[in-house]
């Protein structure tokens, strides 16, 4: 346990804040919903891709082994966490303010 772990959590939570801020912006400025929807689709694609990859790895497929996905210059687990936080932040804000 070190300050590094808390620092990382702080950085990753920024993704949640970004998702939340995007939804809030869409409430203020409705045209932004298009961007929210587009990002939502991208997030869905990302998770679909992730699931396919995980299945491929579990089944020992050679193509899955060489696939590498990277978001914001971080590795697979971290980028998944960032995407999750982004989606959760946006969804929670949607649930709260809509």
């Amino acid at each position, binding site marked *: 346990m070190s300050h590094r772990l808390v*620092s990382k959590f702080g950085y990753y939570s920024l993704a949640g804040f970004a998702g939340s801020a995007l939804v809030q912006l869409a409430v203020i400025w409705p045209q932004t919903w298009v961007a929210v929807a587009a990002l939502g689709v991208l997030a869905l694609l990302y998770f679909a891709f992730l699931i396919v990859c995980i299945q491929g790895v579990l089944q020992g497929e050679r193509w899955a082994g060489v696939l590498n996905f990277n978001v914001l210059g971080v590795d697979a687990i971290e980028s998944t966490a960032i995407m999750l936080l982004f989606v959760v932040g946006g969804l929670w804000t949607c649930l709260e*303010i809509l």
Partner: protein
Amino acid sequence: MSGNPLVQLLDANLNSGRNRAILRFLLGRAATAIRYVFPARATACYSGLVIGFALTFIPIAKNLPARFTFMMTLAGAGLVAVSAHELDELQDDIDEAKEQKERDRQLRLFADTEAKNKVAETNLLRHGYELDKSLPPELQQLVAPADAEPVRAPAASRAAFDAAVSATQTKQQQNERGEQQSQQAVPSTTVPALPMTNTVARSAAPFPETMQHIAQRLVSMTVVGVPGAGKGMFVSNLLRLVRQHHPQLHLFVMEGKGDQKEAGYWQGVANDIRSIQGLDESPVNIVAWINGCLEDFKAITGPKLLIFDEVTYLYKVWEKTEKESFEAYIQYKIGLSSMGDSLQSFVWEIGQVSNAKDLGVSAGIRSLFKPIAIVSNHDRRAANALLGTQFVPLPEDGKKAVMQMCDLSPCGRAVYDYVNDCWQPMPQLPNLSGFDRDTRSFSQKPPAPEAESQPDIRADLERLLSVETPEPSRAVKRFGLTAEQITEVQKRLSSLQPGAISSVKRIRENSRLLREQGITQADLTELFDYLTQTQAIVWLGSDQRDFKYLGGF
């Protein structure tokens, strides 16, 4: 009320005094706890993080207006970003401090070990055994043998004893050698039985044996000494031994002083002697001379040894004048230091200072060459300056011990050699130059060849040139050359030692003036023909390219 548990948690009525008091108490306790656990910087970072999260979540949880919520979210995100970054930096600093602490600990451990080793070594040398330092001091004294402490005789009686021993040994020596003492041999017992006050010197081999070892097992080395310390004398004696052990070795001497009084150092032993009066020549000429000599040295096939005298001055001039060729030489030198043994090529540098910077190299590169240092008690200030450098290690008792060795030496000198890795008094070596710099007098047998027997070519040429009218020197033509060009050839030839082999091409290429004025080898033919007639030079082949300089300039 919202169904979200987070909202329920934060849905406190802040208008209630009781609730505010509870919240104030909790925050205060949290801050105290954080301050107790973390230092102030960490407290600030964590506080910023908590406030950032609060700024982001509370407006959403409280269903505040979207515009306000959006602004608060951005502010909270910014605060979280800054706090997270600061925490990251804080952790970096903590890690670095830990590493530094570990490094310091390792250094302390290393220093302790070194110190303990030194103490153990000292005890071993001084007492013949290593004291068990785990014992208390009282017990250590009990177990120490009675003669552990060196018994020192009173100074006066000791000096008298030493003098008596010296006198006896010198007498024996003279009887043994008699009249048949050869100048070629290095005296093995010219040093009286010197009282070895220094423990390091006690274990060293006698210096003549060391010289034999150096001569037998050649390496590239640097001989450093204060002015007049006897570097030339030492090297010249060493060269005689080298010649005995390595008859096929080509000894190539580059001497930058050009002092005829010291010509005897090299004559009769070196295969090639190149000399230049460094102080009288222009830097360009000096560099051209060095480059020419080195080219010739590199062209020599088979085992060879370059003796480069007066490197302190020559290197400085060279480095300032033509850095590229100087650096190329340094590279060549480094190559010789590592591969010289297999290539059978060696370099001995002789200079006055041992600072790596003054030798044009780094300390690491300087250490590639084996060190030999000579100091004399005639110039204690210079000796102290040399001993102050890290070129050679000092004995345990420091500079004072070295100066004491000088006082004990019959010639007032002390020498450090890489073989024994210690200082010892220098024995009296034969002076092969014929000039005693200590007394500023010539010895009875001048080693330099008689100059009178040589034709006075210089006077002859000057006489020929002096009949011209006082026109500009360039207009004077003799042998198809101007007076300036003839003088230049004279100068080039005068830098050669009698008996040295050179070529017309080399004379031309070593002269910037001749090259710049477009003088070809063919242009020099008439002049060199004249020189052969006057027996200043003799051609080595019918092609009239290489010649042997017979002297006269």
